[in-house]
């Protein structure tokens, strides 16, 4: 039995690291759901939009250049050599924060006290708007993203263990740890974090003590935008920045079902379980079923967990008294 050879452990490690990549996307969903009860269908598109914007700034692309050229008959493409990566990241963060303000101001603030399903549907609309906006702003071609992250297999790990492990995925794991620590500190030890938790616990009570729901939502969507940027960078570095990036949200859904919609550690643990589970299943059992099992297996695994814990592994049990 090959269960304990090097290849088996390579599959496990690759699965864990792939799971971290799924968790990066799932975190954005959790943040928004936890603070506002909104299931943000647009989270994948937010990641795409953030990555497109980052590459746009990096390469000095003029936003809306296709539109400008079509209307004015000009041929503007770039405004210079581009921006240094660090500055491009800062500018993208500002764009994501501005975008969060617009989303709250133009859409969500009009829907306060609406049913969760209404807010969910608003985010479906938002996903289409953002996808179209991203296309008009930056074009639909495949963009190469290079923010200096290491790529290729780690020679040190190959020499020591014989396993091929992607340096990019190791970097993603480190970033995910830093992100979770930062989010925990922000949530537990800052005034804004306490306000966020207050709103999450009870909207009415939070409002009655003077916490502005609109501001809190803005902060939450900004943080989710930043998390989306991190996910977009990691996935964009893996496959190039292109519109299929928005579909990474599909990989996050089983993670959320398994880990729970309200738990940051749940998003991480859920990602790891899904990542390892789907890889092991695909490699050891997939060939018997014709292969390509990863997509459906992740959902099946999540459904099995749901049978025993409908709120997910770490999610809050929702009790509605009539």
């Amino acid at each position, binding site marked *: 039995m090959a269960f304990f050879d090097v290849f088996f452990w390579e599959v496990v490690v690759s699965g864990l690291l792939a799971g971290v990549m799924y968790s990066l996307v799932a975190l954005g969903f959790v943040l928004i759901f936890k603070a506002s009860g909104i299931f943000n269908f647009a989270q994948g598109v937010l990641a795409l939009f953030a990555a497109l914007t980052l590459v746009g700034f990096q390469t000095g692309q003029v936003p809306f250049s296709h539109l400008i050229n079509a209307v004015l008959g000009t041929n503007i493409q770039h405004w210079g050599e581009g921006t240094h990566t660090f500055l491009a990241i800062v500018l993208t963060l500002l764009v994501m924060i501005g975008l969060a303000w617009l989303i709250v101001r133009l859409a969500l603030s009009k829907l306060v006290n609406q049913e969760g399903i209404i807010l969910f549907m608003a985010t479906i609309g938002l996903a289409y708007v953002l996808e179209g906006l991203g296309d008009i702003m930056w074009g639909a071609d*495949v963009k190469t993203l290079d923010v200096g992250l290491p*790529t290729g297999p780690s020679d040190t790990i190959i020499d020591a263990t014989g396993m091929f492990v992607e340096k990019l995925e190791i970097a993603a794991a480190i970033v995910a740890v830093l992100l979770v620590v930062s989010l925990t500190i922000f949530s537990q030890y800052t005034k804004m974090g306490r306000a966020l938790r207050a709103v999450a616990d009870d909207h009415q009570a939070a409002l009655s003590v003077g916490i502005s729901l609109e501001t809190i939502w803005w902060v939450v969507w900004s943080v989710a935008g930043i998390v989306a940027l991190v996910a977009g960078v990691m996935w964009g570095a893996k496959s190039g920045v*292109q*519109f*299929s990036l928005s579909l990474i949200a599909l990989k996050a859904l089983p993670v959320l079902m398994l880990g729970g919609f309200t738990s940051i550690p749940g998003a991480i643990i859920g990602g790891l379980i899904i990542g390892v589970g789907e*890889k092991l299943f695909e490699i050891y059992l997939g060939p018997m079923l014709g292969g390509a099992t990863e997509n459906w297996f992740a959902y099946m695994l999540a459904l099995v967990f749901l049978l025993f814990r409908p709120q997910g592994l770490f999610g809050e049990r929702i009790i509605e008294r009539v």
Partner: protein
Amino acid sequence: MKLTRIALATALAVGLATPAMAELVFPSLSYRTGPYAPNGIPFADGYSDYFTLINERDGGIEGVKIDNPECETGYNTTKGVECYESTKGLGSLVYQPLSTGITYQLIPKATADKVPIHSMGYGRTSAANGKVFEYIFNYPGTYWDAASIIVKYIMSEEGGDISGKKLALVYHNSAYGKEPIRTLEKLSEKHGFSLTLLPVDHPGQEQKATWLQVRRDRPDYVIMWGWGVMNQVAIKEAASIRFPMDHFIGVWWSASENDVLPAGDGADGYKAITFHGVGDDFPIYADLKKHVYDTGKAAGDGTNAGTVLYNRGMVAAMWAVEAARTAMTIHDTKDITPAMMRDGMEALNVDEARLEELGLPGFTVPVKVSCANHGGPGLGAIQQWDAKAKKWSLITDYIPADREVVDPLIEEDSAAYAKEANITPRTCE
């Protein structure tokens, strides 16, 4: 005042009664949005720009202007069928769906409507049998041709013998990706190589498990039947596990700049089959610049000119124009119908001399279509990516398909379709 009204009404009535100036309608079922847009856009631009060139430079085909309405499919089969239904009433002469899924759905519809489909190098391979598929064409080559040419090329690299070698097929888990399996299985029986099948689900963003299997099984060659992001991720993953890139060969839909650029230097040496030239070093580009790009009439922003998929869109349009011209000659009319267009496609003969006249010397393979053979010559060359120069180069001449394997498969599959669809194959002289 009354007279003016009468005059106006008469003018309007005459205007309405007079038939509108005939136009040749070549709809474009394009996808400029969604996950597959990076591939759909350059193809649609090339397709459209060639028609614009013919209109602007030549005043249309034999003086009749071309209309190229676009309908967005998003590479979605349902939307593709809707696009077909909504545009066929315009008098559309030929459809180029650029999707195997859409093509499969349109085969019975278009046949019933007597509207030709040109699934150029994609779609249902056995549509090459014109006796069964009267309105479906897939020249200049089919997936089965491509698979056999790739195997022939591998044999030439291995000194003519690949018995005992291991080949793996990494494929898009869809009707498109599954097309070459049967041919490769037959070829594996013929040449004695083993074949591992590794499907990748749409869209192919995550392929870790696939490439772990490649690492474990260590095939001598990997053949890829991918599309969209699947190609980029596969090439990156192959580079990441240090698979020798010159032993990694893609079909012509895994062969664009989009597919290799994101992998950077890691993609160096990657190979793919093609049926047309690379780059913009052809006389037609001077005409395109003069009549289309510089006059602001280009479909896109000009950045796609000379890319693989732009050239492919252009060659598809070129064959459509030449077929329309042939149809006009056959039927001695400029007002051709889709059925006449079919006749033109069936009599299409674009040889090297004609390519030269069109400003496309050596751009693609000479194509001669016939009543029985809708698949064209079935030739393909191998191109290789140079990551430093960021360009493709042709590294072989055009190689013929293994007809001994491919033709019986086409015969068998088309006969099965004829039986299923209750079609009596026609006889071809």
